[in-house]
């Protein structure tokens, strides 16, 4: 998928989420950011951590026979604020990382993620 398409994917996810998503980004397995939205704000920490967490949990999943992992959800507490970090492995070894707002519509996020391959 070209970089423009990834940028469009991130923009569409954030725009369609009805404020359930604060940001979306696509990173490589090494944590390199390929695309992100909002375009004026990039969370490099989330990209690095997301890639590391996915790598670790993927290894555990494979080692303990969980099969191919389709999604990772992490509930986070940071400075009293609760958010979710949603990560989905994509084709070509890329990872889609979503950061939710404090009160996200998880059903809507599930629906939006179903369309991502």
């Amino acid at each position, binding site marked *: 998928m070209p970089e423009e398409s990834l940028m469009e994917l991130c923009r569409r996810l954030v725009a369609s989420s009805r404020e359930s998503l604060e940001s979306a980004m696509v990173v490589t397995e090494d944590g390199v950011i390929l695309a992100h939205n909002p375009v004026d704000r990039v969370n490099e920490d989330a990209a690095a951590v997301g890639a590391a967490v996915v790598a670790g949990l993927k290894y555990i999943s494979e080692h303990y026979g969980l099969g191919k992992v389709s*999604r990772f959800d992490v509930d986070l507490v940071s400075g009293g604020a609760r958010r979710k970090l949603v990560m989905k492995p994509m084709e070509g070894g890329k990872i889609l990382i979503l950061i939710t707002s404090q009160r996200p519509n998880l059903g809507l996020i599930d629906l939006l993620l179903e369309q991502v391959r």
Partner: protein
Amino acid sequence: MLEALTAFFGNTITVLFVIQFVTLGLALFTLVMWQLRYKEKVVYVKDLAEVEASETAEDVGAAMMLIFTDQGRVVAAANIQEAEAASALLRESIRNLDELGLEATAIQVKGRGTSLTIVHVANVGERRLYAAAVRPGMKPIPPDVLRRTVTERFSDVIGAEAKEAEGSA
């Protein structure tokens, strides 16, 4: 008293030897009993934890269960091979988030036909206690359900860990 004992044993030297032997015997007896009781207690806690882990896994419909601390120490495990290796790997994933000042309260991994749920159960002294459970099927164990079940089942172990942490502090 000493005179009576001397009269009984014949001389004072023999009395002193007897007293020394009795003291030594009592010390050895105490040591052996303490060792036996300690071993019994350790085995009991270990067995109990395994049984509790199996029962907790059954309660939440999990195939595997692992309870570990943020230092990677295994508290209890059921139906899981290389529990120490698994806890070390899980701890690393959690630590990645910690390093950014983000505290992970729950992690869900959805696989094809299996799901993994990891929850922060409780703070025990300075340590954080986590539970990880693998459930067959696409529906992962809700974090709140896993947390509540583990807290109820392991209230004794969590209590013991808390006392241990207090003692070492």
